[in-house]
């Protein structure tokens, strides 16, 4: 462990290059975790804000539409969760009312189930990535800590080898080791914050989809009574 007397000792590159292989692996892993975490954070932010606008527009269009059959022709093909919920309701409605006799109770139940299942599926898809945030948020500090413990063990071995406990012998190793914890926290903190925020966002989207599904279900129920 050379004691270099330049300020570059603490530069990230130097710390990384000087570190033990295990610590290096930990650092690389944490860095990738951080990259992926931020990918998810940014991607999710874009997705949710897009989703809100889509739902807003879709609900407006839905309220303005005279007839859901005609609206279904326009909107069913859209790649949007709310459109899929709508399409699921419409297709179930068509299937249930295709026969000559209509079981109203059964149709209502099937409509509710079909749209509820679609909402659940959409939410599952939406929150697919969030568990990674949760994992990183809870595990990354420990992984970083592992790297630190390993690195400090190694630098203590260095003390024993150098027969000297001077700071110059110990400091570089400990700095490298602590760098692992730093990266772990660097990855974990945004992940935890994002996980909490996005869990909340997903709940709101889910509630909104459910409200839309309930409203559509009510519309279809009314229509079902008229059909009969």
């Amino acid at each position, binding site marked *: 462990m050379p004691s270099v007397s330049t*300020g570059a000792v603490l530069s990230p590159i130097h710390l990384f290059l000087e570190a033990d292989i295990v610590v290096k692996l930990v650092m690389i892993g944490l860095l990738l975790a951080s990259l*992926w975490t931020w990918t*998810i954070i940014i991607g*999710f932010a874009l997705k949710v804000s897009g989703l809100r606008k889509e739902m807003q527009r879709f609900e407006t269009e839905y309220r303005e539409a005279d007839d859901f059959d005609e609206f279904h022709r326009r909107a069913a093909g859209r790649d949007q969760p709310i459109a899929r919920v709508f399409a699921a309701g419409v297709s179930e409605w068509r299937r249930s009312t295709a026969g000559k006799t209509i079981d109203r109770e059964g149709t209502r139940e099937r409509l509710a189930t079909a749209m509820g299942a679609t909402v659940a599926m959409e939410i599952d898809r939406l929150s697919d990535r969030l568990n990674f945030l949760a994992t990183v948020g809870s595990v990354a500090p420990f992984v970083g800590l592992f790297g630190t413990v390993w690195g400090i063990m190694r630098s203590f071995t260095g003390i024993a080898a150098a027969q000297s406990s001077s700071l110059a012998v110990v*400091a570089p190793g400990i700095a490298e080791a602590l760098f692992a914890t730093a990266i772990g926290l660097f990855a974990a903190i945004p992940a935890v914050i994002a996980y909490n925020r996005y869990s909340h966002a997903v709940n709101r989207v889910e509630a909104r989809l459910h409200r839309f599904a309930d409203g559509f279900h009510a519309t279809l129920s009314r229509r079902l009574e008229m059909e009969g």
Partner: protein
Amino acid sequence: MDRSERIGLGVSIAAHAAVFAALVLSFAKTPPQEPPKAIPIDISLADKVGLESSAPVPSQEELAAKKSPVEAPVEPEAAPAPAPEPQPLPKPQPAPPKPAPEPQPQPKPAPPQPKPKPAEKPAPAKPSKPSPAAKPQPQKPSTAPAQSAATGSARRPVKPTGNLAGLDLGRSNNKTASTSLRNPGSKASAEDVASFRGLIARQIQPCANRQVTPGPGAERIRVLLRVNFNPDGSLAGDPDITGVQGNDATNGRYVERVKDLAIATFKGCTPIRGLPANLYAVPSGWKSLAFSYKLPG
């Protein structure tokens, strides 16, 4: 991975690269910090070396004794004068003879005296041999240093009193006793001073090593202190600060702290063990010593 995640991946890679670059650049810019060096800590203890030799008194007496028997035959007439002279002689003697006048006369009768002298103290013996001419000068300082040149000639006749066998013997005996005389009356020699100051420095060192520099520049401050010891090596009261050197505008605020550290250093590692008891109260002994204290670095 859909479109939004691809955007996210791109942005996050770019952001990480930016953070990394910023870190590297910022660390590259920071001025090189001196890594903490393991500096061997030195207490600089100002050694005030006693340049005066501590042992001359007995040796001078020896010279006088040697010469007196030689000279005795020169002036037999002066024999009547002994009465006044014995007085000057006893004056220097009173201290010397007490320790061991009796044991010595037996082992060293008058004739063997010259032999042991050269053996014991070759250096003083040499001057004695050529001295016959210069005798008077070495003698006088021993008996009465004040009366040096002018009175020296007048004294010569007085010395024949050394002829008196009993007196001579007494004197010569005293010379041999000189080694034992040295302790009570002598002062600490330069070697002694260096020795016990080194001893103190070694025992103070661990405490000095413990002191932490209170701030940059503080290690330039040099605190002069006077330390008073008890005979058992412990401190007699707190060390007195007698002066401060090396304080300037940058480290002026650490002066008080360094003073405290200096005192703490001495208080922490006393009592000093192993100091020579016979050099405690003598001139330039270790009863009171001046040190200068400086922080490591």
